[in-house]
Structures are given as C-alpha cells and as structure tokens.
C-alpha cells in the first residue's frame, strides 16, 4: 500500500512537472480595435522597473486616443525566441520592440509592416529621426520595417579614483588602454571586465575590433567574409586582453550577460569595462555615484580606423497582421514623439533618436557630450543583411568557446581563430 501511494505521489509529481512548461500567450485579442498589445524590451534595471516607467505613458496614450495598450515586458534572453514563435504562429502582438541589429533579419521574414511613405507620414515623417539611427531600420534600399526608439552606444567606463591613484589619464589609444589596464591589475583587482561568455557582446566586439582594422564581415552582396585578416587580427586583439595581457579575470568567461561586468565595475573590483550607455542606472543602483566614473570612446589601435561602437539601440516594429494598423501607427508616433522620448530617455538612459534633441539621459553634460560624439561620429551599423542574426550567433558563440579555452588554461592562436571562423561561415552559408 505504502509503495502504491508513493508511486502515485511520484506520478502526480511527474505530471505536475511536465505540466508546468509555459502557457500559450494570448497576444492578440480578437475584439481588438480599441486595444493594442505591446511587447517592450527590458531597458530599465528590472522588468518591473520597465513597467513602472512605461505605465504612465501608456495611460496618457489611452487618455489621448482611447486605445488601451496591454503591456508585456520581455527579458533579452527570451525576446528573440518569443518573436520567432510569434512570427511562426501568427499569434503576435501589434507593436513590439526589437534589438535594432535584428532589423534586417526580421525584415526578411515578411511578418512586419513596411514603413512606406504613407506609414512614415502617419508617424511624423522619416526626417524626425537622427539619420544614423534611422539607417538601422532595415535593409538599405527597401522600406524599413522598424523605426528607432532608443539610441545606445558602447563606451569605455573607467573608475576615476583608481586612475587618479595610479597617476593615469583616460586612454585615447588601444595601446594606452592596455598599458593602463596592466598597471591597474594587482592582487584580486583587474584592469578590465568583459562579458566574455555573452555571445551577443562578443559578436559586437568582433565587429567593432574588425571595423577598427577596416574589415567587414559581409561583402557588398551580403556574402559572409568571416576569414579576412583584419577580422582575425581584431578578434585576436580582443581575446588577448585575457590571453596575453592578462588584464581580465579568467572567471569572466562565465559572464553570460553584461550585468555581471557592470557589478564588478560598480563594486570596485575592476578599473574599466566596455558597456552600453544604459548601464548608468545599473551602476548607480549598485551604489556607485555618477561622479565616481568617467566615460571615453573605446579606443582604436594607433593608425586604426576610429570606430568605438556599433549603432546600438532599440527599434519599434508593427506586426503586419495587426487588426488595428491605424492604432499601431498612432502608438508608434506617440512613443517616438518628443514629449514621450523626453520622459523615457532619462530612466532608460537612452541616447536621443530624434534629430535636434539634446541628450537628457544624464545630468552630466560632459558624459552626454561624450556619448553623443561616440554615437554620431564614431559608430558603424552592424551589417544590414538578412544573415546578421546568424553572424551574431555563430561568431559570438565561437568567441565564447575561445574565451573558455583561454580561461581554462589553453591557448588560442590566429590559426585557431581562422578555423573557428571558417566553421561559423559554413554554418551561415548552409542556412542561407
């Protein structure tokens, strides 16, 4: 008897376990017309924080137009899969945020509403956006399927006190940066923190370091060219921060998102980090004050091209099958209006995507100037090709492995990098 009841309990437990896999999402309400479903990405310090920031704006939109917006904030780990599922099933929100680097890839699914001239007019015209930001909307020469919402850029954050104590000034070249990092690596402190286990961050820096060498991951026809010398040298230079310069703690190979590097920086464990401009709110939530750190452009090696960041940021898209196209366009117009942007840029530490608007993400004029300069003058868009997402996943994951090899005591030579990139390129070619 005892056994039987035990077995029954186990069976019930097993059923409960299998039953708890996620419930289907009831994104689009058939009684639409006066409602919109909006998937927002995680821009604030937490998903709840995003809700708190966005809710008053959505209320305002409802008062103005009578359209109720059902908000769901989705974390970055899930967003891409959720979008894939939505595209596949047609069970999609009306409006959503996307990482702007995915724009061309998502455009090629054909599931998103192209912003033709009529649609652009409905949201206030193409010219209201900064051109750099607007260019990320989709494949060049076609109607974009997304418009910019928040602008972001990478910066080199440094700890002012640590630099001052060591008698250092903020670096302006790669060589200076490495020298400073070496000087600041003592005991259990390190010169640098990297999200070396995050494939997105790794792919971004593969791109930026290659761009500093004048190399591109795709040619003019959109064919992958992953094994160019400039790319291999760029990746090698970045890996060497951990491998030969030893200014990065090998433990960073397990940092699968930027937050962990930000925490190390805010807690004074490292002197420098590379992160996007929206890290400010996370830094201060960890107790580091705004005047305790500075930001400069991520420097190029001497003689290299001055590229400090890719054009990072968040775009907004409308699903083609929305039952409330006019409402959706109205909502995009509202979210990209000057008043809403002014209200959101500060809590989300976003750079302005509207032309002629002064940055409001920080009270620090110098910081605002630095990031505006990086965003407008030292940025390159990631490849605007349909295979961009595959570039991120294959090259980024290959770099994860290379960092893992280095961290666990192995070495990664340029031949190894070339071999890994050849494999990545074959995978991209096989899928296209």
């Amino acid at each position, binding site marked *: 008897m005892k056994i039987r009841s*035990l077995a029954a309990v186990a069976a019930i437990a097993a059923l409960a376990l299998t039953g708890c896999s996620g419930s289907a999402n009831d994104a689009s309400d058939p009684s639409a017309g006066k409602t919109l479903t909006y998937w927002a990405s995680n821009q604030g310090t937490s998903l709840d924080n995003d809700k708190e920031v966005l809710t008053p704006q959505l209320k305002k939109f409802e008062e103005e137009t009578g359209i109720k917006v059902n908000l769901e904030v989705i974390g970055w780990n899930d967003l891409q899969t959720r979008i894939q599922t939505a595209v596949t099933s047609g069970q999609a929100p009306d409006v959503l945020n996307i990482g702007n680097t995915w724009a061309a890839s998502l455009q*090629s699914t054909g599931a998103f509403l192209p912003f033709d001239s009529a649609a652009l007019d409905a949201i206030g015209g193409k010219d209201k956006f900064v051109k750099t930001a607007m260019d990320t909307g989709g494949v060049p020469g076609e109607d974009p399927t997304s418009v910019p919402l928040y602008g972001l850029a990478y910066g080199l954050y440094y700890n002012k006190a640590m630099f001052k104590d060591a008698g250092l000034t903020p670096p302006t070249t790669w060589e200076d940066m490495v020298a400073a990092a070496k000087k600041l690596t003592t005991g259990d402190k390190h010169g640098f923190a990297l999200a070396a286990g995050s494939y997105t961050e790794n792919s971004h820096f593969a791109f930026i370091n290659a761009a500093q060498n004048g190399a591109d991951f795709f040619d003019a026809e959109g064919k992958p060219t992953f094994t160019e010398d400039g790319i291999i040298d760029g990746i090698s230079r970045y890996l060497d921060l951990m491998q030969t310069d030893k200014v990065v703690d090998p433990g960073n190979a397990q940092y699968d998102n930027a937050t962990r590097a930000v925490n190390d920086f805010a807690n004074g464990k490292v002197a420098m980090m590379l992160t996007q401009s929206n890290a400010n709110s996370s830094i201060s939530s960890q107790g580091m004050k705004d005047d305790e750190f500075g930001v400069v452009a991520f420097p190029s090696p001497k003689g290299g091209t001055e590229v400090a960041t890719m054009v990072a940021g968040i775009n907004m898209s409308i699903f083609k099958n929305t039952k409330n196209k006019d409402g959706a366009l109205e909502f995009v117009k509202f979210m990209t209006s000057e008043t809403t942007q002014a209200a959101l840029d500060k809590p989300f530490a976003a750079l302005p995507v509207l032309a002629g608007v002064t940055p409001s993400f920080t009270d620090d004029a110098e910081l605002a100037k630095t990031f505006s300069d990086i965003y407008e003058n030292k940025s390159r868009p990631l490849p605007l090709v*349909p295979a961009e*997402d*595959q570039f991120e996943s294959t090259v980024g994951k290959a770099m994860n492995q290379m960092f893992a090899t280095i961290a*666990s005591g192995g070495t990664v030579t340029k031949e190894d990098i070339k071999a890994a990139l050849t494999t990545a390129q074959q*995978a991209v070619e*096989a*899928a*296209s």
Partner: protein
Amino acid sequence: MSASTAVKNTGPAAGATGRKARKPRRQGWWLPYALLAPAVIFELFVHVVPMVTGIWMSFLKLTKMFISNWGNAPFVGLKNYQVALDFDSAVGMGLLKSFGITIAFTLLVVGISWGLGMAAAVALQKTFKGRAIFRTLFLIPYALPMYAGVIAWKFMLQKDNGALNHLIFDNLGLPGDKPFWLIGDNAFISVVIVAIWRLWPFAFLMLMAGLQSIPTDVYEAASVDGAKPLRQWWNITLPMLRPVNISLVLVMFLWTFNDFNTPFVLFGGSQPPAGDLISFHIYNASFLTWNFGSGAAMSVLLLLFLMVVSGIYVLFMNRRKDNA
C-alpha cells in the same frame, strides 16, 4: 467537450453498420470504442500530428524567409538530410560530434543511475527503523521542479562563488586553481552528474516497486541452502526483476538520449562543446539560425536512430525470453 462529441459521432454511425452485419451484435458493443475515441483523438493531436508535421517540414526549405507563411516554403527533397549527413561540412561534423557526446552521456547516465537505484532499492528492501525517511530523501530530486533543481546546480558549479569549488578548495584546502565546471571539458562531467542526480530516483522507485513482488520465502530458502547476499542478488533478485528492468532501461535510455532540459538550464545560451547534447544541438541549429527545415531533418534522423535501437532492443529481449 470533445468526449461528448466523439460519443455522438461514433455511436450512431457505428451502430448503423452494426445493424447491417449478419450477426446481430450485442447491445452496447460500441461503448468501449466510444470510450476510447477521445483518447485516440487526443493522441492523434498531441503526438501523431506534430510528428507528421515535423517529417513534412524536414523536406522544406523552411528558413526565416518562409516561416510567416509556411505554404510558400519550397520543397527541397532530401537536401536537408544531405547537409546534416555531410560529415565534411561544419553542420554535419557538428551533428556527428554531438551524437558521439550524447552516446557517451547516455551510457554513463543510464548505467550509473541504474546502479545507484538498484543499490538503494536493495538496501531498503528489508524493513528497519527510519526506512521511510531514506525512501523520501532519495526521491526528493525526482519530486523537485526540474528547473529549480538544475538551476541550484548551476549556482553550485560556478567557478568563483560556487559551493563545489568553495568546498573543495576553501574548506578542504586542496591546492591548485579553482577549475571551471560549466565551460571547457569539465562541462561534460557536470552535465552527467546533474543528469544522474535527476534520473536515479526514478530507477530507485521502479526497482523498489519491483522488489516488493519477490516473495521473501525464496530468499529464506536460498539462505538455508547457504547462498550469500551477492549470490542471492545475482540468482534471485536480478532474474525476478527482469520484466521491470527491460522496460526501465529502455525508458531511461530514451529519456536520457533526448534530454533537453538539463543542458538547457545548466548551460543557458552558451553551450560548451563538451556538453553539446543532441536535443540541445538541434534546438540551437534550428532556432539560432532560423533554419527549421534543417532542424526537422536532424530530429527525424534522431527519431529513426531511437526507433532502430529500441526495436533491436525489444526484439533481442523477447528472443532471449523465448529461449529461456
């Protein structure tokens, strides 16, 4: 709801054919069919339809260009299979490596889980004080929500602040550097250990239930004849548990070979090559590159392999039973 419609549909229609037949059927003969119908219909929906869809997908070029409108995806015949099985290419080589890792993983996990489950079941076969406590304790990993259990392991296996390295190096004072457990080659050991931790209570539960059906007088007779415990286990316990073991090992093999949750939760988005189990590999191959046709082809190959292995296993076991 579908149960009642099923009854309505099958009932009168089947009754009509029954009347035409020469032999009059017994009244209410259709009832068992009607009662089975909902289950059969659900089975079709839950298992057969997705499986057939998956097989159909494997012949399509279902990339991101086509997933919003599947009907437009071009038919490519066996191309997806060719790519998956071309071991000179990166895709085929990756699949082959992952297959090898999964075989090693499955053999280790099933073998060790079965051994542990058997040892624990035999140890708890005789009644003694506190037996219930051990039984409950051993079943905890099985009762824990999978995600919670594996994520706890993920925290314990961190390099710098994980409990395992803390125990080995800080508390026990082992010399040397703290190793990584979730990246590099150690990832394989980690995923094997976590999978065993999850699976062995199931083997324990099944074997314990099986042991209850062995009459105690067989053991008593054996010990009168002078058989030691090991001999008793080999000559009585093992043969009498044979029916349980046949299905237990097959089920554990299938579950372990297909294990997706353990590597997915343990490694997150960046799976190390040493822990690249096949379900997870296929998921990455299709979702990261949006190439669902290729992923479906790999899944069909996996299905074929598991069907062949299971078939041979069942045939072999039945033949041995007939000979015996």
